[in-house]
């Protein structure tokens, strides 16, 4: 099992490196540099631009720096580590090394602030939203799925299946906007502006909206696994030996049906993480997602890249958790490594 965990964790390294490389490459295809984009403000002159570029290391080559390495070699340096570091003294690798130390660089639009400061300051708001949404999704999704499956083809089954299908197929941002229009501006049940996000009340509507797709996903999965377990021979055996119906459901059906459900909580978590971006922006929750969306609108490239890396790390970790839970719950997968 330990070997399995280490393998999965090591696999995250090339994945995150790939994410960083692709985002870095793409971000540098965008026209213009960080200091000449803001046309409303005073433009910097050549000398200032050069010193700014030097200060942020933008005068270095983009990916590799063979010139620096050969200069060191010529000056008699033979330590491969020092030479290697000089070879990688480039914008991309410096970004990666800094990111590994938790430094995501300055925001291009919010003067004087570092990307990681913005992200960590807003993190608690996102966490609250995400946790509430996950709790809602789990405590309503699983019972709905179980009831639907136990009463297959009943009206309860059809209704919950219908709503679950709506929940998985209609995008979160569409549901969020409709909720704002109907319950916010028309019925005035929820307040849209001037919310105090340090209290729990305003989180109610957004976490229901965000949790809806996850809840539907869980309902659908639970329903289909319970249906499958229900038909197994060991359930018939349990009934045949005279167990009460409640015992059969709780001890035998639920316990076995929960394995696939627990393993889909991981992808559901990923769904919540990325879904939160849009939900926060729609409901103006001052979480990381809202700042990410603002950065997209303002073309704040360093903020976009930093947030992407953080979100990607979260997603990759969530996927590793899924694999681990598979391994824990199903011994067959563990033995394959």
């Amino acid at each position, binding site marked *: 099992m330990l070997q399995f965990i280490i393998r999965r964790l090591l696999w995250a390294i090339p994945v995150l490196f*790939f994410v960083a490389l692709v985002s870095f490459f793409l*971000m540098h295809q965008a*026209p213009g540099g960080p200091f000449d984009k803001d046309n409303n403000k005073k433009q910097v002159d050549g000398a200032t631009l050069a010193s700014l570029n030097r200060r942020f290391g933008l005068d270095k080559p983009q990916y590799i720096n063979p010139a620096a390495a050969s200069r060191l070699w010529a000056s008699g340096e033979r330590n491969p580590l020092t030479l290697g570091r000089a070879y990688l003294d480039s914008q991309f690798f410096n970004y990666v090394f800094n990111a590994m130390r938790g430094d995501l660089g300055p925001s291009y639009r919010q003067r004087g602030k570092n990307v990681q400061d913005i992200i960590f300051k807003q993190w608690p708001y996102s966490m609250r939203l995400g946790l509430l949404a996950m709790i809602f999704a789990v405590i309503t999704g699983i019972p709905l799925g179980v009831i639907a499956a136990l009463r297959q083809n009943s009206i309860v089954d059809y209704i919950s299946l219908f709503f679950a*299908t709506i929940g998985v197929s*209609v995008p979160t941002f569409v*549901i969020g906007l409709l909720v704002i229009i109907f319950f916010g501006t028309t019925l005035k049940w929820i307040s849209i502006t001037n919310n105090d996000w340090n209290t729990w009340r305003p989180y109610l509507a957004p976490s229901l909206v965000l949790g809806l797709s996850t809840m539907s996903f869980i309902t659908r999965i639970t329903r289909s696994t319970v249906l499958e377990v229900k038909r197994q021979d060991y359930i018939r055996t349990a009934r045949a030996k005279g167990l009460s119906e409640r015992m059969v459901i709780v001890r035998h059906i639920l316990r076995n049906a929960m394995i696939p459900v627990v393993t889909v909580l991981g992808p559901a978590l990923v769904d919540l993480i990325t879904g939160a971006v849009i939900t926060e922006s729609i409901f103006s929750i001052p979480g990381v997602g809202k700042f990410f969306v603002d950065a997209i*609108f303002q073309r704040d*490239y360093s903020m976009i890249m930093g947030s992407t890396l953080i979100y990607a790390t979260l997603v990759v970790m969530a996927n590793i958790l899924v694999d681990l839970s598979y391994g824990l719950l199903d011994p067959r997968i563990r033995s394959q490594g």
Partner: protein
Amino acid sequence: MATTLTNTNSVSDSVEQAFAQRAPRSLWSDARRRLLRNKAAVAALLYISFLIVVAIIAPLLALHNPLDIFQNNSYRQAAWITVPNRPEASGSWAFPLGTDAIGRDVWSRLVYGTRTSLVVGFVPMVFTLFLGTVIGLVSGFFGGAVDAFLMRFAEIVYSFPAFLFFIIVMTALKDTPIGKFWNGFVILFGALSLVGWVGVARLVRGQVLSLKEKEFIEAARAIGVRQHNILFKHLLPNSLGPIIISGAFIVPGAIIAEAVLSYLGIGLRPATDRNALFPVSWGNMILDGKAAITAQPWLMIAPAISIASITLAFTFIGDGLRDALDPREAN
């Protein structure tokens, strides 16, 4: 005893007769029957056909050109809503769903938006299926180093969160020549297809790996069928079911992605040419509507409901296809 025996015989005889009398049916026609018995899927198919017709005859249904600006008509409410003391903001049947910020007709824009959504759903699906099928076939059929390399690569791509990839691609390339090409359609299709192929490739590879060991492939090899014939005449047709099912789920995913990206202001560019085939997208309309939730809610409600219903319809079709093509999975 003797009577019982004859009875059983006659029963099995009649069963055999029944089978003989039934017209021969292919697996595909069986699947079609199962699909057509699924009411939700049939309703969804009818709805999508209706949307296709709307997209084709959009010029006949639209009351105005979707790009025409009507002066002094900005944020007019939907036709049935009257704003007291403000005739210029009250509804008029010249603009059934009202107008947007610069006085463009919401109904006409909604009708033309159908075209964009359908194209954005179907075109990436075709590319994604093609790419994924080719890679999956090659990987599964040839195995070895090719397979190992392709699957490692697929795993890395798969770990890249799709939503973040779209955002990165669209923000970075939006203002470059390739991003401006065809109002951003090309770059959007590219981004959507580059992400989606992985799931299809894994699926096809898995199918090929299990089919490869089956007797009919062994038989084909034994009688000397060429490799490419085994690949395209035996393995591909037998993997089509899962490919079609995943295609049905790629379409709504692409439609949602386009809507979200346009809502974030990094999707398709607004067209300027009055004769453009795809002048407006529902995602763009929602972005416009966000600024006027109270003044003109239908600017947002209409495209939001359209997106909700089209994605719901495709999900019903996907569910129906899965139940029809893979009866083991059906409950």
